[in-house]
């Protein structure tokens, strides 16, 4: 027996097998007095409870931040966070922003110029000039 083994660790992809929502915590900051927080206060009063109950995977933290604009911050599993200033927005717009934070993966925004990103090997393999029958052009 001459074979020895190399140590490798399996690689997981979110959504293959199980899906884990990447947004794990959402911080909601508001101000009681300033006008820019009017929409945020309405959001907290009317829509936050429903939004939070439909997303039990996310930990919500509501805290006042006096004399500052209202901010939504999403914390992600990869350790990054994403903040959105929601000053002067109405509650529906803020809901949209909260959904944006929920759907984000936490990765940096970068240009995707390949239609498919996969770690699965291609069925037909990598093209090689030394194989195949070829054809006359």
């Amino acid at each position, binding site marked *: 027996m001459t074979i020895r083994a190399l140590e490798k660790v399996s690689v997981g992809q979110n959504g293959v097998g199980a899906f884990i929502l990447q947004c794990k915590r959402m911080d909601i900051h508001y101000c009681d007095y300033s006008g820019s927080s009017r929409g945020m206060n309405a959001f907290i009063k009317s829509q936050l409870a429903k939004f939070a109950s439909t997303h039990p995977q996310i930990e919500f933290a509501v805290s006042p931040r006096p004399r500052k604009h209202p901010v939504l911050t999403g914390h992600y599993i990869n350790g990054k966070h994403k903040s959105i200033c929601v000053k002067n927005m109405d509650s529906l717009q803020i809901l949209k922003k909260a959904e944006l934070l929920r759907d984000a993966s936490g990765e940096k925004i970068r240009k995707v110029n390949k239609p498919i990103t996969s770690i699965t090997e291609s069925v*037909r393999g*990598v*093209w*090689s*000039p*030394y*194989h*195949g*029958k070829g*054809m006359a052009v």
Partner: protein
Amino acid sequence: METRHLLRPLSSLSSSTTTTATASAMSSSTSPFTRSIVAAATGRRHQSTTSRTKKMLKIPPHPDFLTPREGESHIIYNPPSAAPSVYHTPFKFLPKTDPRRQANLTQLIRSSADLSGPSANANNLPPPSTKREGAPKMYNVTREQVDEMRTLRAEDPAKWSVQKLAERYKCSHLFIMMCCKAGPEHKAQERERLEAIKARWGPIRSGAREERKKRKALLFKGAI
């Protein structure tokens, strides 16, 4: 205005070159040089890259994808032009109970595993990679010869080196080394000689040897 100034000498040049070139390039009807000159003279300075590449890429489909003339049902078989994957078990390696072996796919798997050609006859196989590859084993050294070989090697290992003995008995170096062992002093001497040679190597050569060792290790890991 300026373009006309520019064009005029060009056109005159082109007419002169065409007249001179026709004489020389009568046999080869249009050399690329004259073609470009003519194109410049007629006002088309260059061809559009998109249209050219599109035209170049317009090739008929691979013959495998063409329907046969009779219009009968057929299977498109076009194996990938890629190195075969190790997850595709060769037909010979399939166990007896495997459904792939039991189903009537024998011919298909045989031909897909073999990319050298459609028929895998014994005559049609590619050539062996080296001359000795696949040659039948000779087993030509007798027991007496082995004993003689051992005495020779024990007498004078410097004179009867492995190479000399292999030449004499017409067998491989490995077989000689399996049969007889040199004494410890000869081994030490040889090692000393090798060390002296290695000491003379410069950084480039010794570095290259190191790299070769690393490449070998990577090869056995399947990394290259």
